[in-house]
């Protein structure tokens, strides 16, 4: 293949990764922003979304598209409910103290991983794509489903942005993020906001997983990479800044796609890590974050 089309392919693959990463990382960023909780178990919510999607694909009869549609709605809801429960049962009792919640979410990571191993098993299992369609470009063919992933992720992110900027729930979340105590002095039940935010953050990871699992397979250890990449994105983009998160996800996703295609995936990870180091040294508040 010539260089031009090859680069196009690399960028398109990178865009798929970027879309899924943007969803996952915005969940992590939202939880940190509103709750000041560094959720080390975020990748496990991603994994649970994928595993739940596999179960749904087994249980829902009919064409794969039906099972997929069900999974896309049901799996994030299940994961969100579990996250809300974890917040109320664990994080709330720790008063959402930053240090204590890091340790607690490490414990949660381990529990969720072992629970998945017990219930789902150690195998990697594929989930059928909702539809098979090939896009034939002049130089190469491409999976139509991947295009759908990009579109769906963009739609969910747009919905998230509208929710945060245009609705009462979003306003309440932003006010809580700025000043918990004053939010409480205006009748905002911060406990509920926290549980809801933790649930929403987990649901975003689960949506990302349901979208990616027809391409990637579900496995009980699959949460590690999305967690690491989400942290990279959130550090580069600036903690708690949604816009920064989206731009950084695009940057990391695209560079990952291009470098993996032209060289090798390991080099892509090295470059991302270098980028994080540079940001930490020269702009610790992130490329798009406000100075602390």
């Amino acid at each position, binding site marked *: 293949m010539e260089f031009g089309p090859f680069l196009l392919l690399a960028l398109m693959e990178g865009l798929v990764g970027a879309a899924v990463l943007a969803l996952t990382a915005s969940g992590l960023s939202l939880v940190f922003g509103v709750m000041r909780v560094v959720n080390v178990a975020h990748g496990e919510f991603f994994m649970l979304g994928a595993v739940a999607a596999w179960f749904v694909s087994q249980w829902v009869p009919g064409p794969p598209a039906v099972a997929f549609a069900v999974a896309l709605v049901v799996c994030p809801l299940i994961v969100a409910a579990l996250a809300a429960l974890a917040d109320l049962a664990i994080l709330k009792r720790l008063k959402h103290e930053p240090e204590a919640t890091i340790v607690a979410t490490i414990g949660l990571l381990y529990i969720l991983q072992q629970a998945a191993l017990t219930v789902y098993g150690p195998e990697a299992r594929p989930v059928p794509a909702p539809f098979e369609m090939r896009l034939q470009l002049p130089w190469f063919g491409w999976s139509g489903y991947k295009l759908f992933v990009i579109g769906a992720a963009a739609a969910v992110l747009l919905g998230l942005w509208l929710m945060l900027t245009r609705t009462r729930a979003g306003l309440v979340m*932003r*006010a809580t993020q*700025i*000043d918990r*105590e*004053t939010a409480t*002095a*205006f*009748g905002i*039940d911060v406990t509920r906001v926290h549980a809801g935010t933790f649930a929403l953050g987990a649901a975003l990871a689960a949506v990302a997983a349901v979208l990616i699992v027809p391409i990637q397979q579900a496995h009980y250890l699959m949460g590690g990479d999305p967690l690491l990449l989400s942290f990279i994105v959130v550090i580069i983009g600036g903690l708690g800044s949604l816009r920064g998160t989206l731009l950084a996800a695009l940057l990391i996703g695209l560079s990952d796609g291009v470098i993996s295609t032209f060289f090798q995936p390991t080099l892509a990870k090295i470059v991302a890590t270098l980028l994080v180091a540079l940001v930490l040294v020269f702009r610790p508040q992130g490329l798009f974050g406000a100075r602390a």
Partner: protein
Amino acid sequence: MLTLDAVDAGFGRALVLRGLSFRARPSEVTCVMGRNGAGKTTMLRAIMGQVPVSAGRITLDGQRIETLAPHLIPQLGVGYVPQGRRLFGSLTVAENLDIGLMTRGRGRATRDRVLDLFPRLRERLGQTAATLSGGEQQMLAIARALCLEPKVILLDEPTEGLQPSMIAAIRDTVRTLRGMGVAVVLVEQRAEAVLDLADRVAFVETGRVAEMVPAADLGPEAPQFARYVGV
């Protein structure tokens, strides 16, 4: 009516309020005076449920509130204008007001009435709160609290650091609130402002109300000012 009866409150082991008793009646301005660190802000924060109360009781119209979850207290009609304003700085003026409106489910009509009191805010609805001038920020902090149509409003040094024209505007607002039947609790350090506005004055010293006197009994040379405030 808001009452505090023999309230102990503080942070951890250290009590800041010790046996503090206080009341504020509707259609009255009750001023709170006292030296730095006397416990004025802590008293207001205890009312809002932000500082744990370990003894005594706080009631609003006969209902105990110190046992409630803190977010329920404003929903009963207690508006709070904290020291230092504590606006949501990156939110717009309109959004800050929306937060206040949501507290007790008030809508456009309330917002219009509040903005009639502060026409300058109406011109700046889309601006973020942090970009307002100091006086405008204080107006917004008061306006936000008025959006819940409070029965009681707690104002913690609202004129601190403002220019004279702004101070006058805020005093007018306090009179308007009294006229509307609100119980106004005003922490204020300037004797002349207190004499001008207050119906009653509570002098706070080391975490308790040492004296509560009708403002009519105080003159510019009243000994309490020197004893409790040190002017």
